[in-house]
């Protein structure tokens, strides 16, 4: 009795073996972050103007962060479950402006601007579902998923610029930059949803990916309990607002298939 050949050895495109594929790859890129403010706080209180809350001015999507990570994909009939653990730095910036002036002589004043970059390092564990719009070598795709970030480190970088007009002549100056640890100002967890689109292109057996992903933070990442107590910059008026982080990331990666058809070309299932 003739033994039936297993399906995967036939080389036919529509057997079970060729419907699925595992990919392992790497990806990296840059990202831009927006701090979505929930509640505002300051250690400064105005004794003369109740409407002056010393609110911070945020610069959204201005400073670039970066990330690098791995990608594990399981492909089935145009859909892909994609696990993309990565190490990422997210950067957001804000500034506070203060002015003190002499009521009797308007030419006497001091202006200070405190500019701060907050750098957050996360180990992020995102899970996406991708859908390939075209099943060709050139495949545009959309993806949706969620992520969980574990805070690994945080710093604040303070730069103070000033204009001192107290001596009769305007003089601009920069104070020495300060970099302080800020890990206690943020909680460990950051969760959110992610949406993205991109393209992949098959080069040989490797698939190259270029995509853009928008992450929508869903929790307040500021540590409420430590708002005043763990911040060495509180003395200059800095207190963390309650914020959620939104992030736009552009990444490039390559995926290596793990299943191949037995053929003379040793061709990947795809």
């Amino acid at each position, binding site marked *: 009795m003739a033994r039936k050949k297993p399906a995967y050895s036939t080389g036919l495109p529509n057997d079970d073996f060729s419907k699925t594929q595992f990919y392992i790859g790497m990806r990296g890129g840059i990202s831009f972050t927006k701090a979505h403010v929930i509640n505002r706080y300051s250690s400064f209180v105005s004794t003369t103007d109740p409407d002056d809350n010393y609110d911070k001015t945020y610069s959204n999507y201005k400073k670039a962060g970066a990330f690098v990570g791995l990608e594990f994909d399981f492909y089935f009939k145009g859909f892909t479950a994609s696990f993309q653990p990565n190490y990422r730095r997210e950067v957001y910036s804000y500034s506070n402006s203060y002015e003190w002036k002499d009521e009797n002589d308007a030419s006497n004043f001091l202006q200070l601007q405190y500019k701060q970059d907050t750098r957050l390092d996360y180990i992020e564990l995102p899970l996406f579902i991708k859908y390939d719009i075209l099943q060709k070598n050139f495949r545009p795709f959309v993806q949706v998923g969620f992520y969980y970030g574990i805070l690994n480190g945080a710093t604040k970088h303070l730069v103070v610029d000033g204009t001192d007009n107290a001596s009769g002549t305007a003089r601009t100056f920069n104070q020495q930059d300060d970099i302080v640890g800020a890990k206690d100002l943020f909680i460990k967890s950051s969760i959110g949803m992610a949406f993205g689109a991109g393209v992949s292109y098959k080069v040989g057996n490797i698939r190259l990916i270029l995509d853009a992903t928008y992450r929508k933070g869903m929790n307040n990442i500021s540590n409420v309990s430590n708002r005043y107590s763990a911040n060495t910059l509180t003395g200059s*008026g800095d207190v963390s607002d309650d914020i959620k982080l939104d992030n736009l990331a552009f990444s490039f990666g390559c995926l290596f298939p793990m299943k191949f058809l037995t053929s003379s070309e040793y061709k990947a299932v795809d």
Partner: protein
Amino acid sequence: MKHITLYLQLIILICASCDIKKNKEATPTGFLKIYNEDSYSNQYIPLDIEQTTDGGFLILSSTKISTSSFPGIYLMKIDKDGKLLSAKSLPEDYVSAVPNLLKNGNNYYIVCMGQQDLSTYILQVSEAADITQSGFMSNVQYPLSAEFDLASSQIILQHYNKYDLQTNVSRVSVTGTVAKTRYFSIGSGGFDVEQPIIDHLTGKGKKYPFLSGQLSGNTYYFNGFYNYTLSLCMFDYNWDVEDDPAAAQGYRDERCISSIFSLGGNKIATSRYAYANNYIIPSATVPTISGSFIANSDMGGFLIPELTNDAPMCLKAIQKNGQSILLYASTTKSGQVALYAYDAASGGLLGSQYLGSTNPYTMASVIQTSDEGIAVLATTQVAGRFPRIAVFKLAKEELDW
């Protein structure tokens, strides 16, 4: 592979939800607030803080005024979270407040000096920081220190008599009626006290730790000028007029007691400075018999080298988890507020804590709050040059002892 990943994500999400839920329910138990205004020339030096029954705080400060070299008075009310409820400068007739708010139940008082006649005024302060003048003493000039005597519901008031070159300590009612006065000769040695006292009152010179109050029973004390020196003197209003006080003598204004808290009988917790060095003394015995004396240099104490020369010291008794603690607050050379907690029973150090960063801070006062935390009042130099009022509120859990 797919299942492992999903399970992993599920476990992590459960952990995350705990972290996030805890943060969502958390409320900051302490705060730091800096009360700023955009004036280039206004200056505020906080003096004392008291908590009101609504959980908020009254803050007494001095402020520079244009009509006198003596500082005016600035009064603030903030709520329990540090939000400003009111802030006002008092009429400029009132100057040079003694540096503590007097508290008697829910009533608060400010003792201050008249700008023109240098007499003494007593101002009653409501919990909402409204002011009414309750007492005036035309024959009591240069008020230096005041403390409420709970036993007699009167004020123990130390004042300077420039005509007889005396330190006087009066027991007065809140309406300004002088019940009793003891007179202590400063003497006329080589050390002239007049100008230093004026400079103390204007804030242009050395700030002296003038103190007065009840030690125990009928024994009262004042820390002020007596017999050429700034000394801690004990006395009884019932003694004969000629009876000398008991004294822990200093040397001129260079070796002095800087804080005092009565531990009962003739025992005190105290601190002193000597030729710029500062010492904390959690337990000491002072003479209380008329004419007896010791040198305050014999009281020893723990040298605290990080404090500023002749540092101001605030000493309060507080409780934490049923333990009685002596809390010392002062200012470091590096521009921070330093807190030292000592076990009231053993005199052992329980812990220390330093507050303030970025800009320099100078300690003004400290109190225990109703939640067993503390509130620390300080001056901070905003932008390194504008003296402003700062309040640290620390929860019980944030105290390092």
